[in-house]
């Protein structure tokens, strides 16, 4: 479904993404974890077509991604192929658009619905992510952080994409609502074969939503493989440190001897 080869991105002489490669089958689910600033969001933005790779190739559903941003029908086709939920939902939602209208707009991208049929589909999506009637009539600024994240997820689901990229998309949710959203995503994945790319710092949610995991550091992939083996028997030093830093009962934050790498 998704194949990425030798992907590279530089900003000036700074290398943000360095030779990243992976393959994801239809209906597959890959977690991308790793250091803050290691190039996870940049990689996702290149796959979503929002950023031009410096080198390397991206193929979606067997089609090689050409350069440049598509327009018109090409843009709509791409929206149905790939949807991305951004790390900071506030900047990605239109400040002047009410939640209900934002979701309706995304639905129309995919289905030619109008009137009551459109309203019903919008209600269904908002209900799935737990956004109520009052919130649906609000502007993004009148919502809490987690409510905005759920609106962004509803919008992405509205397009019924083949590939769904979630960038820290459940980070602002309490564990109960998070569980509800993760179960929803797992359900969508099994019923529609949607392929998931799930960027997260929360290693605890990874086993619940992904089969494979890729660990990034300083623009590079340092380790990858099936979730149970990577998280339970990490091979790379960095992955080991990462797993050891997860808060658990009795854990106290300590400073490391060596400063973290750039």
């Amino acid at each position, binding site marked *: 479904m998704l194949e990425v080869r030798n992907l590279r991105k530089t900003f000036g002489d700074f290398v943000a993404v360095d030779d990243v490669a992976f393959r994801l089958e239809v209906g597959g689910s890959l977690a991308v974890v790793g250091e803050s600033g290691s190039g996870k969001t940049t990689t996702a933005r290149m796959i979503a077509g929002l950023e031009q790779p410096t080198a390397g190739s991206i193929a979606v559903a067997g089609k090689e991604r050409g350069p440049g941003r598509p327009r018109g029908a090409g843009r709509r086709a791409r929206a149905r192929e790939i949807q991305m939920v951004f790390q900071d939902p506030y900047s990605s939602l239109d400040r002047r658009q009410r939640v209900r209208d934002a979701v309706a707009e995304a639905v129309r991208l995919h289905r030619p619905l109008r009137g009551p049929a459109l309203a019903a589909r919008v209600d269904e999506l908002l209900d799935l992510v737990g956004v109520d009637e009052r919130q649906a009539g609000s502007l993004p600024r009148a919502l809490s952080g987690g409510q905005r994240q759920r609106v962004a997820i509803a919008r992405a689901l509205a397009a019924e994409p083949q590939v769904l990229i979630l960038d820290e998309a459940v980070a602002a949710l309490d564990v109960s609502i998070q569980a509800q959203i*993760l179960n929803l995503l797992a359900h969508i994945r099994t019923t529609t074969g949607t392929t998931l790319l799930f960027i997260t710092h929360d290693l*605890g949610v990874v086993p619940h939503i992904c089969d494979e995991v890729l660990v990034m550091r300083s623009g590079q992939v340092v380790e990858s493989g099936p979730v149970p083996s990577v998280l339970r028997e990490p091979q790379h030093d960095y992955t080991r440190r990462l797993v050891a830093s997860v808060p658990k009962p009795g854990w106290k934050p300590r400073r490391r001897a060596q400063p973290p790498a750039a």
Partner: protein
Amino acid sequence: MSAAAPLLDIRGLRIDLPTGAGSATAVHRVDLALAAGEAAALVGESGSGKSLTARSVLRLLPPGAEVHGELRFAGESVPGMSRTRLREFRAGEVAMVFQDPRAHINPARSVGDFLVEGLTAARGVPVREARRRVEAVLQEVGIPDAERRMRQRPGELSGGLLQRVMIAAALAAEPKLLLADEPTTALDVTTQEEVMAIVTEAREARGLAMLFITHDLELAAAVCDRVVVMYAGSTVEELPSGALHHGAAHPYTRALLASRPSVGDTASGLRAIAGRPLSGFEVPAGCSFAPRCPRARDACRTDTPLLRAAGTGTSACHYPHITEEAEQRA
């Protein structure tokens, strides 16, 4: 905590917000006190009023918001502060790390200007001294190439780098109280550990107090003295961090703990709390958690429970869980 006034004292806080049709109550009742040097975690449901509570301490609420109840800082009423006093208060005594950092930084200006100005304009620190301090704090929060980062604009920083810039800005101001609203959600756990260790050091060295909003219950218990739980606009339980795992008395807190995912989990489904979450705007008569509570009885649907002693802390529940720990103490 004895005769001395707590550093932060919030009593019966209620926040009404303007809505399409008149105003509605978003926060019903928050009770919370924090001594100098103490840290409390504020956890709970998404939309339960955690951010509004923290923002009310800085008087940074949406236009038209009405605040009722008491809100005191070192004995002084925050709603009663004059404009000049409020400016001084925000510049030197309380610092906040906001949940959405990108909405709180000018995208057109460099990160360095933002950080340095925070010290020069608001606190009168000389420019060179301010630069030195800012660079040092950036290094501390795990940003080694501080000089290059200071020349960049916010849009050129990853989510976690920007979050660390905001933490650096807050710490550089050397406040007495830090309001940290999910300050580490964009950080990998290794960097998070580093940053939390630095905050803990500042607490020990300077007596910094902290109100720490998070969804990570393990993190909350590890870095705070106490945990305060919110549901639908009210504080429903408060307990010492050490008692969180085995001493929670409120059914909501216990349900929340049961929903936690963990690294060692297998791919089974996660347990969400049954029923629909409720926003503060639509709380029914009685206990707001009653519609979803397995222990609810008639009284729960008619009488609103208030915080009272339960187990090792306080709980707003008519029928709290009696835990082993509490039994042993009795």
